[in-house]
């Protein structure tokens, strides 16, 4: 088993992280379009998307079967399936892999839920270290506003209602997101996350991302510009 930081692949892995509502998926989508139009082979992979685990997760969320430990474990299973299927093979083939959320999401959420910091990090030690991990940092009230105003209601686990901080979804969500943000902040130096100020304009954030990523791109890998 090859551990975090030890893999050597010709491909590049760029990941986006951040609290809900930080705008990271929008930014990754724009980056994806740009890389494709530049002619790079790009593979997109999303958190919590393994077809193998999907039904179990869906059922468990609906029936509230999770404890913090099993929530963490099942997400790790999902991530392992994606690593073995969607992340390592394209990287070996020299492609660019874009990941919407990565192991840092688990580190932030699971620890916020009360899981042991070292235990969660150990579980994910098989993960490939990203070439660049962007952390979209938005002030807490902005992020919460974006989520709460955009949905009819907050979901049970999304709001952290399983932990029992509060019975009131919005209050529970606010407490949860605060703890998640604190975990992200401590990971910036621990894992060398690249912080993007998510309160600035979309265009400015995207320019900064493209600039940072260009340094890691091999121009020869292009298959010719798509028109």
């Amino acid at each position, binding site marked *: 088993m090859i551990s975090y930081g030890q893999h050597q692949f010709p491909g590049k892995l760029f990941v986006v992280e951040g609290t809900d509502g930080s705008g990271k998926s929008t930014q990754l989508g724009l980056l994806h379009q740009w890389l494709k139009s530049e002619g790079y082979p790009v593979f997109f992979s999303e958190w919590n998307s393994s077809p193998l685990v999907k039904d179990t997760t869906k059922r468990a969320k609906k029936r509230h079967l999770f404890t913090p430990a*099993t929530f963490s474990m099942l997400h790790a299973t999902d991530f*392992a399936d994606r*690593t073995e299927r969607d992340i390592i093979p394209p990287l070996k083939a020299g492609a660019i892999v874009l990941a919407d959320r990565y192991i840092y999401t688990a580190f932030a959420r699971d620890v916020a839920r009360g899981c042991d910091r070292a235990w969660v990090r150990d579980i994910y030690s098989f993960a490939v270290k990203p070439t660049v991990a962007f952390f979209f940092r938005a002030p807490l009230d902005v992020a919460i506003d974006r989520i709460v105003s955009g949905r009819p209601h907050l979901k049970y686990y999304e709001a952290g209602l399983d932990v029992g901080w509060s019975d009131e979804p919005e209050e529970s969500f606010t407490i949860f997101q605060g703890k998640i943000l604190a975990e992200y902040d401590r990971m910036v130096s621990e894992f060398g996350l690249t912080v993007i100020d998510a309160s600035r304009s979309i265009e400015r954030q995207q320019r900064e991302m493209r600039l940072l990523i260009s340094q890691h791109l091999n121009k020869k890998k292009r298959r010719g510009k798509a028109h």
Partner: protein
Amino acid sequence: MIEGTDGVGRSTHIALLRTWLESRGHAVLDTGMTRSVLAGRGLKEAKQGHTLGRLTMQLFYATDFIDRLENEMFPALRAGFVVLTDRYIYSAIARAEVRGIDSAWIRSIYSMAFVPDAIFYLRISSPQHLVERVVSSGRGFDYWESGMDLHLGEDFHDSFVAYQARMLKVFDRMTSEYGFHVLNASRSVRSVAADLRRAVAKVIDEPRPSAEEKVSLLPALKEKPAPAKTAVNVVDLNKEALS
């Protein structure tokens, strides 16, 4: 806690033990791999497809285990039940090690498990004996029990023999590491069952001193109160592996 390779008669003996314990007036919970409410069904479905990656498989099994640990075994022990488990973390660790998975990694995942009061290892001396049982059981060879994912042999038979030989080796090594109580499973069901009853009776009738009665706090659930009283010990497999 009963361990042993595939086809060695674990489920037969668990069923016999359960009946016997209940007739003696003990409440019994029996549990086993892939039987969790959370992950059991998904894991069985995933195994059907034969597309489970090595790491994914270990983590799926761990999810199943932790769900049963937190939602079945701990509550049952707290309520004074005798818990019989068909396979425990040792089978999971053995399967992972046979597949070349990092031993420290798999042990750290299972570090939240507790040490059972007794681990009975139904040992069979060679894979050939297991083959006879598999054939005569009428079930035939199973893809995963034959370790087909490891490509050890040309067909199910050859792969099964090679895979189970590796498993036996790992179990033998674990016997001293974890203090397995070894029972020769090549004998008749009746004599193995008699041995098991004697050994289980000893564990139940001679409770351990209360100083040892501690429960490992799940790393994931530190803020939850520890259960009042159960007959299990603390273990840190990581520390054991390092020492």
